[in-house]
Each structure stands twice: as C-alpha cells, then as structure tokens.
C-alpha cells in the first residue's frame, strides 16, 4: 500500500468539486473537450459490481477496469465552476458543485499572488439594496403613465458652464451666442463601460459595439460605448460609427499610436475621450493584460510584443491634478479641435472629493466629466488581494462628490458618471435610478454586459478566470477556438433587449415619482431602511 501523502492537494481542497454519475455517463468525452481549464480528465477506475442476471437472486461479483471522468486534484487546473461540462453533457451525468470545505485560498499562492477576473468574493450587503424609491406620487403630485407619457431621458457629457459665464448677449427679446462654448453631448444615461479589445475577445467587443450602434440607429437610444485602453480596429476609427465610441487613454497609452495616426482619416469625431486614471476593482494597481491574452491581433492594435502588459498605476510624468488637467486635457482637446468632451475616470477613493473639487475649480473649464468607479467595478485580470481588499464603495462617494459640488453651487458643472456594481443583482435600471437621485448624471455599466453575452462569473467565486485566457464562454479570451463559442449577433441582441427593458424600467421608476426628465439630485425621492445609510447619504430613514 502506498503511504499517505498528507500534504498533497486533494479535490476536496478546491473551490469546486465535480459531481459525476458514472451510471449516466456514456463516455462521449464532450465534457473533457469543453473544459478550458483542463480540470477533468478521462481515467480508469477499478470497479467492483454485484450483478444478478437471472430471474431469481443469483448474485455474482465482477471486478473490471472501467473508464470514468475524474477531477484533477491540482491547483493550476482547478475547476472554476463555469458549468460548461454540465451544459454540454447530453445525459446530465456531470456538474460542478460548490465546495464548502475549500482550502484553495490557503494553498494557491505557491506561484505568487492569486490572479483573477474582476469580481470580489467578499460580499458585504449592497447599499443600493437598502434604498427604495419612497416618494410615490398619489394624488396631489400625480404619477405619470410610463407607457404613454413622453420622457426626456438624456444626460450631459461635457463641461457645463455657469449661466452667468455663458457668452450670451441680449438682442431684442432673444439671446444670441457670441462665442463658442465647451462641447456638451446629451446622451443616454448609461455608458457601456471601458472594456478593452484585448481584455474582451474580438467577438465580445464587437457584440457590444454592434449593440451600441443598433441602439443608436434603430432604437433612438444614444448609448455610448467606451473603447477601453488598447485602441480600436482601424476600420472602426475610420467609420461613421466612431461617433458612438468614447476613446480611452489610460496610463499605458496602449493603442494611441494607431488612433493618432488614424485621425486625419477619421470621418467623424468620437463621442468623447476618457482619460483613465484608475479603476474600481483594483485601484492603484494599474491595468493588467496577461501574456496569455496578448494574441497577434492584440499586438498589432496595441503595438506591443507578446508579453504581459502592465499599465502603470498612474500616468507617468504627471505630478498633480492641475498638471493632468493642463497637459492631457489641453492636448487632447486641442487634438480634436475642442469639439470632443474630454473626461477623467478615477477609482472611487477616500480622496475622490478632493479630486472633484479640484476639477471644478479648473480655470480652463475643460474637464468634460468625472467618471468614478467603485469597488465592485472592473472586469479585467487582477491580483485577488487588490480585487478584494482595496477600493471604495461607490454610493457614498458619489454622494460626497455631489454634495461637495452643491456646497459651492457647482452641481452639474462637471457631469458625474458612476459605475461599480451597477446591475450587480441584474437590475441595472433600479440601480441607475437610485444613483441619479443621489446626484449622478448617468451610470457606467460593464459587467452586466458581459453577463448578457453569457459570462457565468459571479460574486461567489464562480469562474472568475478572466485572467487565464481560458474563458469558457469565449468572452474574455483570445484563443480562436474558444472565441468561436460566442455568437456575436445573439450576444448583441441580448444587450439590445436588456437596454430596451432598462429604458422601460427607468420610465417605470420615473413615472411614479411624477418626473418626465431625469431626477438628478432628487434625493427626496429615496428612502432607506438602514439608519446609517440614511445619515450618511442624507436621505429619509424608513422602517
């Protein structure tokens, strides 16, 4: 008998255990072929079977070596619970089951920090879930009919001037514009968040871009999509559809070479430029595209060799907020002829209010939006330690920023766009409505989009393998065989359908509070069942 090796990893040490029913299995091998993580394998097992083949009991015992599906007791090929095996099995013979006794977090650091896709596994209760739309109009301030009434659902992207500073001259009984003003675009209050072509598969990225264009051109919803750091396909840069895209420049400046070179051939201006300083899921950690995902076309778009691509945690060479505003905003605004709003995206942090205050004082009036990403935002690869233990919840930080602007009478001057967990429970419209009431001009949604494409990752540690290049749904990988698993048109349709429902749901929330335009800062419409939340956000407490 072999000696017992107590230090060996066993299946019971892993987060997910494969529940396998040999009696149902036909050994077709589909599950093994579908498992991108190499977590299961075909093996042989010696089995003892008691049989009785006659009309009366006549038990005999047989010993035979039989083929079975086995889970590998290995950390690098641990099951992530994606459930592809279950999906593909024709006989319901196999499925992953969450393992309560996991020792994974203790054992998995043999090769440095654990890296994972952008979902935290620590699940404090969400603030938004304790908030309700509490001021419902009944009699004196009647509710509207959400199906029949006309709603005006648009939000600004761009630097807004104070009325007293507007270059307007009275001419008779009219006002005449005497000078140009910073560009402001009124868009749909939900922006498709910055997920780069590289982080996502080309097909996933295309599906989101397709949905954005369809929503604009067929549904009358001016949704904008942010490119993410990493550049864009040349064809898109030179097409009319560029007007639906917000170009992102992050600290690694990946892909910008191509964008700059394409500028003379651009038919139209992009919807905006977003300078990413930080992101919610791993603030202060920069971006990370593992080498496994840097395929040849990614190398071409970004202009990089095949290597893990780290974006630095900050924009190198910039020392202060003022300097950022001057250098980046002036140069980018100038590059696009001051026709394109340039906004900044930061991770929510204890210092966000200082940054926002600083931007509000910007003498150039050139910051076209303050995007903030909370701890539950982000989809990319990350070290688990950053993902789960750094960051700031978005709700109170949004409120702090809004109230800071209120204190100076500058609310609305730099539109506040917030993300990080919007739609985490699947109800993005409700989250968006609450955030808008608390002072946001609009929300950024990301994770829910990839979930609509088929992502099975969740906040309870299911899958979370965006960093591995083995995404079983073809969303977060560059492996051509896996990418083919994703149906672009079906994915785009899911997003379009969801956004149409989102719009309808937003109306369903606007109608009972009697508003036909967005209730930015209408905190009186909200109540919360949590006293601490009520005190912090300055909204009504209800119990």
């Amino acid at each position: 008998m072999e000696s017992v090796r107590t230090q060996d990893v066993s299946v019971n040490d892993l987060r997910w255990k494969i529940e396998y029913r040999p009696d149902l299995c036909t050994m077709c091998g589909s599950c093994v072929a579908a498992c991108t993580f190499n977590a299961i394998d075909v093996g042989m097992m010696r089995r003892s079977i008691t049989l009785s083949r006659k009309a009366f009991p006549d038990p005999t015992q047989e010993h035979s070596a039989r083929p079975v599906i086995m889970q590998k007791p290995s950390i690098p090929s641990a099951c992530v619970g994606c459930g592809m095996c279950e999906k593909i099995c024709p006989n319901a013979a196999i499925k992953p089951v969450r393992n309560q006794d996991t020792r994974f977090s203790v054992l998995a650091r043999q090769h440095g920090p654990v890296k994972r896709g952008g979902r935290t596994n620590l699940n404090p209760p969400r603030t938004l879930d304790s908030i309700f739309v509490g001021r419902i109009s009944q009699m004196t301030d009647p509710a509207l009919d959400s199906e029949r009434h006309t709603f005006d659902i648009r939000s600004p992207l761009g630097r807004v001037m104070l009325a007293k500073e507007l270059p307007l001259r009275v001419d008779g009984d009219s006002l005449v514009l005497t000078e140009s003003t910073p560009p402001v675009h009124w868009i749909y209050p939900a922006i498709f968040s910055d997920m780069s072509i590289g982080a996502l598969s080309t097909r996933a990225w295309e599906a989101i871009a397709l949905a954005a264009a369809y929503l604009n051109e067929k549904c009358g919803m001016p949704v904008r999509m942010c490119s993410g750091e990493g550049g864009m396909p040349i064809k898109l840069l030179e097409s009319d559809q560029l007007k639906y895209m917000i170009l992102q420049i992050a600290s690694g400046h990946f892909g910008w070479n191509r964008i700059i070179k394409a500028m003379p051939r651009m038919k139209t201006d992009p919807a905006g430029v977003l300078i990413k300083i930080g992101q919610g899921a791993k603030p202060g950690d920069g971006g990370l595209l593992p080498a496994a995902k840097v395929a040849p076309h990614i190398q071409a778009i970004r202009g990089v060799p095949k290597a893990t691509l780290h974006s630095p945690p900050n924009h190198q060479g910039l020392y202060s907020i003022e300097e950022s505003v001057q250098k980046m905003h002036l140069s980018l605004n100038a590059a696009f002829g001051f026709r394109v709003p340039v906004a900044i995206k930061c991770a929510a942090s204890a210092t966000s209010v200082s940054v926002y205050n600083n931007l509000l004082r910007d003498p150039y009036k050139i910051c076209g939006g303050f995007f903030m990403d909370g701890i539950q935002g982000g989809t990319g690869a990350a070290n688990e330690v950053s993902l789960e233990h750094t960051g700031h919840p978005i709700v109170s930080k949004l409120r702090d920023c809004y109230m800071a602007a209120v204190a100076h009478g500058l609310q609305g001057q730099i539109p506040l766009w917030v993300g990080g967990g919007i739609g985490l429970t699947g109800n993005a419209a409700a989250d968006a409505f609450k955030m808008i009431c608390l002072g946001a001009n609009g929300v950024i949604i990301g994770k829910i989009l990839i979930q609509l494409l088929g992502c099975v990752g969740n906040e309870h540690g299911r899958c979370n393998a965006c960093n591995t290049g083995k995404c079983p749904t073809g969303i977060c990988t560059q492996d051509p065989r896996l990418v083919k698993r994703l149906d672009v048109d079906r994915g785009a349709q899911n997003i379009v359908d969801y956004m149409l429902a989102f719009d309808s749901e937003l109306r369903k929330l606007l109608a009972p509070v009697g508003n036909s335009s967005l209730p930015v800062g209408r905190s009186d419409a909200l109540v919360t069942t949590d006293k601490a939340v009520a005190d912090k956000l300055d909204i009504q407490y209800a119990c």
Partner: protein
Amino acid sequence: MALNLMLPQQEGHDNSGFAMVMQDLEGVFSHYKDKPLLSLACTPEGVQLVNDYMEERAFVQVAQWVPEVDKRPDLKINAMPRYVFRNYDYPEEYRTRSQKEREDLLLDTRLELRALLAEKQNGFVYSFWPDVLTLKEIGDPADIAVYFRLWNNDGRLTARNIVTQCRQNTNYAIVRYAAHPFFLQGYTVCANGENTFFTKNKEFQKSLHRGYVGFESDSQNFLYTLHYVLHELRWPIKYYKHVITPLPFVEVEKRADRKVLNLIRESLAHLEINGPNTIIGLLPDGKMITCCDSKKLRPVVVGGTSDMVAIASEVCGLNAIMPDRDLSKDIYPNEREMVVIDNDLAVQRWNQ
C-alpha cells in the same frame, strides 16, 4: 375684489390661511409710492427691535398705516399682536445712489430684519419695497378678511395689481412665511400645485443669491428662478419658461436657436421644475404672467373685461367678479405657453 374672486374657489381652501401682495398702491399709500414700504407682523418687542434697527441704519419713517382690526372673539385667526405697514425714506447717503444699490440695501435690510425677528420669535417681515404691501395670516380666509376689515370698500387699501391665495402650503409645517404669494425685490409669485424638483431646485438656488432664503414652501423656487432669470441674468422673459420647463431634446433639435436653448438647459438643469404646478407672477413693472409645468397638470384660466384682467385657478373665480365678460376670450394656457398681461391690459400669449 380679490377676495370675491377667491370665494367661489372655496373648495380649494382648507382654512389654513390667507396672503396677498399688493403692488401699485392707492388709498393711504398713494402719496408714498417711491418710498420703501415695510410689511410686518410681530410682537410689541418685535416692533421695538425693528424701530431700533431702522433708526440705527438711518432710515427715516415717513408714514405708517396700522390696520384697525376687528377683534371679534369667534374669528378663526391666529393673529399676531401687531401689524405694521410703514413707509421709510432711504438713508441720506442712499438718496443719490444707483437703483441697484438701493435695491440691494432694501433686500439686505429685510433679510437682517428677518433674522433679527426670528431670533426670539418676535415676528415676520414679508416685504420691504416701494409701492408693495404684503399681508400673510394663518386661519380662515373669510375671517382673516373680517379681522382686517378687507370687506369694507373704504378705499384705504386698494391697488392696481394684486396677487393673492387663500391657503397655506400643505407639504410642510404651517409657517407664516410659507403662505403664497412670495416676494423678492419686486417679483411676486404664487403657485397652484407642487414642485417635485424642490430638493434639487433648493440645493442649487441656495448658493445663487443671498436673497434665496427660507424655502418654507416647495413653490418658493419658482419665484427665485424668475428673479434669477430676469433680475440677475437679465434675460428676456421668454427664457423663464425655457429654464423651468426645457423643451424636449427632439423638439430643440428642430429649432434654429437650439444652441442657446441647449446651453441654458445644461447650465440651469437644476432649476428645471417637473412636478404639477401653475405659476402666477407679478413683475416689478406691473406685468402679470402665468405658465404651467411641462405636463400641464394644474388648471389656470385668464379672463378679462375692458378695465380688468384676472388670472385664477378656476373659472368660477372669474365668473364671480366678471360675470359679464366675453367668455369666448378666456384663455386656458397649455403646457408650453406663457401668458403676459401688460399694464394696459393687453394680453399676450405665446408658445415656448
């Protein structure tokens, strides 16, 4: 007359109060039209505080009218001990100052008096402005009129322009300041309805102007925005409607002046109103206006004869005071419309 207009609309009263602003006064005030008139309701200590303050600031009292109140015991009125309506002359140094400086002085004086009286609950100061009288009271409007002898047509208290309302606000506690109409530097507004954007309006207005104070009623915002657009920004009146009820984006796109309209919407997004309301206003030059929220969820009607035009919530009010008018000329303004009545009673009605 104003009271008679209000009576048939009794259904709309809840006997919580009565208030009015009179402008372009006749009767006892006809000789002091250029002298600021202070309207006060206070305690005897309050009068003393005001006397001392005004003396210290070198205002010279030139006239005073104290209503002879009817103190019948059964009246439903929550009266203050003293009602004071006084004309002052400007301090010596202000007699040669600009109009703006005088306007600022009157506003600051009122705000300081308000704070002074509020400190120990000694009273309320409603307006301090030439040729404008304000009276606000808590109780049954008819009884309040009896108390102040407003039914007596003795010619002492008359005016060419009157804005009045017969109830207190319902959304908040009953406070004298909360009674419509509201007054600021020559601008008067009363409203029928609610302001669902009260919080966002208020949060923005608080930092726009020192005179935007109180916020005892959700419709005070309408006055402050009117004042901000016309008095502070000095924009033509048609832009008031574009600020409070911006045109839908699809409609703006069709307009030649879309750039200006978009800029206004962007800059003053927090002054938009979106709830159910009708606004009736009186401007410093005597023009009266009315307009509605963007969904037209509250009634209003304008009607007139050759020597009088009135705006009322309900047509029964007009019928009571002008039964013989040409009914076909009554105007029921729609959601995107504004009605302006000039001093010569010419009625303009335009689309936003």
